[in-house]
């Protein structure tokens, strides 16, 4: 579904990603872990199509297409979804308005008929339950005045409505208390299926107690230095990033 080859990315002259390689197949759940400043969020934003980065080398293929040539909206319409680490507040645009416009743009893109107001409302009400979002949130401006936890739940709610093929969740767990974390995890688990791939980017292993990954990758200093299964996350939690970083330093020195 997704193949990243030797991706190198710069911002303001500084190299942030220094040759990323990653393969994700349908149905898989990958966790990318790493310390602050390792390039995790940059990777997520690059996949979503943010234009403040300079891609100096590498390729990204998504469902056989060159992802890097696609506009952000085209990526979304092709089934790519990113849950933002810091969801933006958009006063004057309601959640429902944005979701209906986004969902119908994707449907149009796929040659499907647009959903009318009735069917759309039925869908959002059902999905709102999944992440325990109160219906009153739906008519509020996007993220405006939401608490940190509400914003993150709103991201997963949007994912549930837009039903992506590939979801990239950027630190959806950070800032959540344990109750909110469980709700988010429940929502994500409910959305796992054999056709959908999910990449979870996280600083902490905590979320992975509730969402069990198929693969875990450790990103340090712009490179994936270690890959493994769920046990790698546990080991990392016990030993800390320093354990890997020293290894990474040794690897890059060789």
């Amino acid at each position, binding site marked *: 579904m997704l193949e990243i080859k030797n991706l190198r990315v710069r911002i303001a002259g500084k190299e942030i990603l220094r040759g990323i390689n990653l393969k994700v197949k349908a149905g898989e759940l990958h966790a990318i872990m790493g310390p602050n400043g390792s390039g995790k969020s940059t990777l997520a934003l690059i996949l*979503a*199509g*943010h234009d403040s980065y300079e891609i100096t080398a590498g390729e990204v293929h998504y469902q056989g297409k060159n992802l890097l040539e696609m*506009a*952000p*909206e085209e*990526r*979304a*319409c092709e089934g790519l*979804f*990113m849950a*933002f680490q810091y*969801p*933006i507040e*958009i*006063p*004057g*645009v*309601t959640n*429902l*308005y*944005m*979701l*209906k*416009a*986004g*969902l*119908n*743009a*994707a449907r149009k*893109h796929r040659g499907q008929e647009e959903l009318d*107001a009735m069917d*759309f*409302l039925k869908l959002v*009400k059902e999905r709102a339950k999944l992440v325990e979002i109160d*219906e009153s949130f*739906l*008519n509020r*401006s*996007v993220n405006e005045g939401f608490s940190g936890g509400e914003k993150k739940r709103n991201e997963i709610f*949007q994912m549930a409505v*837009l039903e992506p093929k590939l979801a990239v969740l950027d630190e959806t767990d950070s800032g959540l208390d344990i109750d909110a974390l469980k709700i988010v995890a429940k929502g994500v688990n409910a959305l796992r299926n054999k056709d959908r791939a999910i990449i979870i980017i996280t600083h902490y292993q905590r979320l992975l107690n509730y969402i069990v990954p198929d693969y875990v990758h450790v990103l340090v200093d712009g490179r994936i230095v270690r890959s493994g299964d769920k046990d790698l996350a546990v080991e990392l939690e016990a030993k800390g990033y320093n354990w890997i970083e020293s290894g990474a330093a040794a690897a890059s020195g060789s």
Partner: protein
Amino acid sequence: MKTMDSKTHYLQQFKDVEARTRGAEGSWLSKLRRRAIEDFSEAGFPTTRLEAWKYTNVEPIVASRFKPAAETANGLSPERLSAFTLGTGSGSLLTFVNGRFSKKLSRLGPLPAGVRVESLAAALGNGSLDLEPHLGRHVETSGHPFAALNTAFMDDGALVFIPAGVDLQEPIQIVFATTQAEPAVTYPRVLIVGEKNSRASIVESYVGLGDQAYFTNAVTEIVVQDNATLEHCRMLEEGSRSYHISTVQSHLSRDSNLVSHNYAFGGSLIRNHVNSVLDAEGAESTLFGLYVIADRQHVDNHTRIDHAKPHCSSREIYTGILDDQSRGIFNGRVIVRPDAQKTDAKQTNRNLLLSKEALADTNPELEIYADDVKCTHGATIGQLDEEALFYLRARGISQKAARDILTYAFAGELVDEVKTEPARKYVEKLLRARLPGASETTVLL
């Protein structure tokens, strides 16, 4: 010496007005006209050397030396007119074509006893209502040459009179349409009187059909008496080569409440003066303005709120959305007179620039002569939030639609303030027509 020539041109035209009206109208009105033309003669046309006109050059208007519009009403079918009217079946509608009242294109809904909604020319002609205490008593002509010209030349327009205690449910709409093929000037004049304890909503629309050059020089006087409430909505959909200069002068009595909406969409050069005098305790004036312009459109809003008495409040929000090489000017003056203690005045001007070549000027002017007052003002000029654009695009919304949605949201706050529902719906329609990407209807649970 072009200005000199143009001035003479209008002074000459006034002789025709005098010849036509002498003996045919009350001497108070003749005196009013005469004083106005003298005020015009003294001031002449403004140049950009004057502080109040430094951003707006009226030379194209002056040089055009417009003739009065011909009296024939043409080019406006009821079908065409319907595109500019509110979607209400029973509300009253007064239509003026090229400055003249059109009975055929007007209709009166069922109105409570004593309410007058009619052509000003007719009301002045039959003398059934004494207009002397109001007409021309509020707008200043000295030092205001365009208001002076309107007063000297006024011929027709609308009279709306709401007697004491009447609560008018349906809005009244007044449409001034210019269809004239030749370049011409019209002087629409509106007088609105809301007697004590009355309530009404009035919508004025100025529309241009076709792309000829013409000049609308309009004056509206609004009198809101004790404890009366009035919502006044002014919408400019003038033609692409038109000039529009206007004054809306309101006078507020004790505990009265005025909400003024000033929307500018169409017109090549627009200058609005919106003046409100809070002349007794407890009066409340709210001025909202929205200008959504593109190409080389130029909109200059000069507002003046005069807190003449204590315990009055005013709130003002003017919002500009400027695309291409358009230019928007906001000059908001708030005067607090020496004994106007406990004044509460709040002014905001927000501008959204959609292109690098658009230009916004904002200038608050607070003149405070009392010491126990609360006056605030704030101005912003900015662009669309790139991160919000990216967020919407990441949800599948095209760049164009995302821009339109965010732009609509920027203006939406003001649209929501229009309390008269058919008027609000109409403004929404106008705004969405300019922002097609935001055209999807509101989604509500």
